């Protein structure tokens, strides 16, 4: 399976992470992050959301982010799976996995990938609120999180 995927379907976290280490005995650390849909945001109730992306560019952007993570840290493999389409509260949105020899570099690379994904990969969320659909606005705190890696 490719290590960057954008898909409508859910994913099995255990199976995806296991695939990162299968057949290898040099992996000592496997760091991961799972993002989920919350039922509230900025004081609004959220009944669900729709995720839009830019087919082609989104995958390239994710590949570049992962390549940069692998060049900055001594890690073995990286994995990003991001869902698009309609999602309900409690559903998984994104999985990032990083395998490496040691935990420090795997943790750092995993956090870097998430921070860059949130500010550089072309995805857009539209939330369904009691007042109707609402496009999520970019947060300054996400830019700050990404900027600390510069």
């Amino acid at each position, binding site marked *: 399976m490719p290590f960057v995927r954008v898909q409508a379907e859910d994913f099995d976290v255990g199976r995806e992470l296991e695939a990162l280490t299968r057949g290898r005995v040099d992996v000592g650390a496997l760091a991961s992050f799972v993002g989920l849909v919350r039922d509230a945001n900025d004081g609004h109730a959220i009944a669900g959301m729709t995720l839009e992306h830019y087919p082609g*560019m989104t995958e390239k952007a994710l590949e570049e982010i992962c390549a940069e993570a692998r060049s900055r840290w001594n890690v073995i493999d990286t994995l990003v799976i991001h869902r698009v389409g309609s999602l309900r509260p409690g559903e998984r949105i994104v999985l990032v996995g990083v395998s490496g020899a040691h935990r420090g570099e795997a943790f750092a690379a995993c956090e870097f990938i998430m921070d860059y994904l*949130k*500010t*550089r*990969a*072309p*995805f*857009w969320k539209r939330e369904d609120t009691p007042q109707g659909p609402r*496009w999520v606005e*970019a947060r300054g705190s996400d830019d700050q999180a990404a900027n600390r890696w510069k």
Partner: protein
Amino acid sequence: MMVTLLYFASLRERVGRSREEVALPAGTPTVAALVEQLRQRDDRWTEAFAPGESWRVAVNQRMADPATPLKPGDEVAFFPPVTGG
């Protein structure tokens, strides 16, 4: 020369279309010249691309900026700041 324009998310809704082919004057056009041309269309476009509106642009699926030059057949995408993850 012709270029393909794509619009995403809230910007797509504001301008009421997701894709179009546009003719640019000959010369050495840039993203800035294209945006100026779009602003001339009507109030909706003027507002969507007003100074201070936070839109982003990609040329051939790479992040670009107003100074980026355009050539025939380029794919130019406009969208709001990203909100994935």
